[in-house]
């Protein structure tokens, strides 16, 4: 489904990288892509706001890594520390093999795509993109040649002579990306680069960003508050909240096995209810006593906590077919929300709210009216235990 461009062909415009392209996927991570290691980063702002609290993090070369969290969680501060625009109060930053904790931004092989794009309003697009090369002393002819080839790669050749105030948001976004990419940094930082764009353009650029990252094999660190975006794009994500990492791992793992209630709620719609464990084979839920799924709650043989079940894992029972694994929950439909591809039901069972989503794929799919009494089928193996 992605834009068809072989890595070799598409990476050619960025000089000096084509040699690394001949290898297979594993070798992509080679070249100049660098890993990042952050140790014990702490940053306090005047007024006592703790933006980062003893955060450690390791990012692999060539990885698309996302820092995900609500506003004020510290993700932008972490990005700014990587760029050199902010200095941590404590902790160290390594990019590749070099410690860069106190290296100023202009001496780091790191470039940023800013949230506001931050294009130079007094320069045309050509000189915006060529700025980094100019600062590095690349002669004009060579500079413009490389601007042309990157512009072709990002598909903005026809914009090169325009000024920033003559560009749309999506165009500015591409130019900000080209301005960073042309320098072939060890590390590319993206600070919510798509948040100002409308939904259609946004998903188009998501795919394009991914294509660019994969074909260049560059290390991308992406900051966003949008968990959908994070899931589409990232190899791994770190969920941040209150200046600490709540959970870090591959997208699927974080979504399906969130480590705590915050992550569970932030990664998508979550049904969370209280449970208590009784021995090795029983748990108490608001909906009755269920069989304890294998491994649920770890080694605890008693005690209480919370359980998560995602809305898409709950099914409506048809009343006839009985299921080996599923527990039956009697519930009342409160609201039905048609969302195009899916229908979302808000229900209540034993005073506990439950949300269920159904894919609208059936031809004669049954619909449930408000106030209807229904049977829900929940497979306890889908339950995730949360402290």
């Amino acid at each position, binding site marked *: 489904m992605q834009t068809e461009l072989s890595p070799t062909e598409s990476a050619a415009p960025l000089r000096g990288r084509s040699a690394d392209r001949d290898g297979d996927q594993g070798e992509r991570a080679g070249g100049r892509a660098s890993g990042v290691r952050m140790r014990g980063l702490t940053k306090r702002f005047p007024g006592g706001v703790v933006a980062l609290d003893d955060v450690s993090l390791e990012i692999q070369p060539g990885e698309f890594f996302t820092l995900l969290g609500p506003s004020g969680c510290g993700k932008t501060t972490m990005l700014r520390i990587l760029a050199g625009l902010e200095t941590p109060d404590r902790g160290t930053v390594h990019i590749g093999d070099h410690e860069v904790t106190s290296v100023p931004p*202009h001496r780091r092989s790191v470039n940023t795509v800013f949230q*506001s794009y*931050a*294009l*130079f*309003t007094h320069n045309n697009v050509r000189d915006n993109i060529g700025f980094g090369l100019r*600062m590095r002393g690349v002669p004009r002819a060579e500079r413009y040649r490389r601007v042309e080839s990157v512009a072709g790669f990002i598909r903005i050749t026809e914009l090169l002579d325009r000024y920033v105030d003559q560009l749309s948001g999506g165009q500015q976004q591409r130019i900000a990306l080209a301005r960073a990419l042309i320098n072939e940094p060890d590390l590319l930082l993206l600070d919510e680069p798509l948040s100002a764009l409308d939904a259609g353009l946004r998903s188009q650029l998501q795919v394009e960003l991914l294509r660019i990252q994969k074909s260049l094999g560059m290390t991308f660190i992406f900051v966003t508050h949008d968990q959908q975006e994070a899931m589409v794009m990232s190899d791994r994500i770190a969920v941040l909240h209150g200046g600490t990492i709540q959970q870090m791992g591959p997208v699927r793992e974080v979504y399906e096995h969130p480590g705590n209630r915050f992550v569970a709620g932030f990664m998508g719609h979550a049904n969370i209810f209280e449970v208590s464990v009784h021995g090795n084979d029983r748990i108490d839920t608001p909906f009755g006593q269920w069989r304890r799924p294998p491994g649920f709650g770890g080694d605890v043989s008693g005690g209480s906590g919370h359980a998560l079940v995602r809305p898409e894992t709950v099914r409506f029972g048809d009343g006839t077919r009985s299921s080996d694994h599923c527990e039956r929950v009697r519930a009342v439909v409160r609201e039905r929300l048609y969302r195009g591809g899916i229908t979302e039901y808000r229900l209540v069972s034993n005073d506990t709210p439950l949300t269920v989503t159904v894919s609208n794929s059936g031809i004669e799919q049954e619909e449930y009216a408000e106030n209807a009494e229904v049977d829900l089928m929940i497979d306890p193996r889908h339950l995730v235990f949360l402290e």
Partner: protein
Amino acid sequence: MNDTVLSGQRLQRRRQRFAALHVLGTIAPGILWIIVFLILPSVFLISVAFMSNGPYGTPEMPLTFDAFRQLAGFGILGWSPGNLATLGRSLWQTLITTISVSVIAYPLAFYITTRRPASRPVMLLLVIVPSWTNQVIRAYGWMTLLEPGSLPSRIAAGLGLIPEHLGLYPSNFAVGLSLVYNFLPFMTLPLYAAFERLDYAQVEAARDLYANQFRTFWHAVLPQTLPGLMAGIVLVSIPAFGMFVIPKLLGGGKAFMLGNLVANQFTIASNWPLGAAASILMLLATFVGLAIFRRMGRQLGGTEAAVI
């Protein structure tokens, strides 16, 4: 029946006439203002410049180029460089004043922008307040401050900058200092406005793209504040070029500027045609200066700075 239709048409015609009158009434004061205060004086000034100077100091017929010849330095006693030197001194004094004011006001405006929002208006007020007093009073203030025997004069003499018995006033230096003092607010305010809306993200982008401190300033800060700087240069240089109170009071007759030349012709020298011709020269010099400046601005500042 017919009557009402007729009166309806008449009403409409009257309404149209009223609308026309209304438009005329709206723009008339402006037109009148321009005629009375711009066109008529200009016509008068240009006419006087081409008339002869009568024996009693009144412009008379016939029309001649005498005033312009005098302005160029050709007098009864042959050619003298006096007027050209005055023009040169005016241009030089304007240039020095504008540069000095820019050099002081630029960091000052930046400094004010970086203060707490609550203290900024107070600091701006401190910059503006001196200009609320009369220019002559301020000039006399500088006189007292710089006269022979005053503390600054004794310090300057002590450092060997001026002879022992002289003061800093009267001198070209006193004129320059007073001009800088006088015009500082006119540069600080537009620069402050420019700094206030500076897009700091562009500054960070420049640092991120390998620009060191100086190049960050040169490529990301200066271009953004250039419109303010250019507005300030126009606001300072044009009135400085025509200034006559400060050179007269603080120059001690040695720092004669074009404004003094004009003022003298209309007063003690009673040579209106020469005064008018000198005024026209000042206007032309200003127009030429502005035209050059606009060109430079367009090249330096891209699209935005060219507005001025």
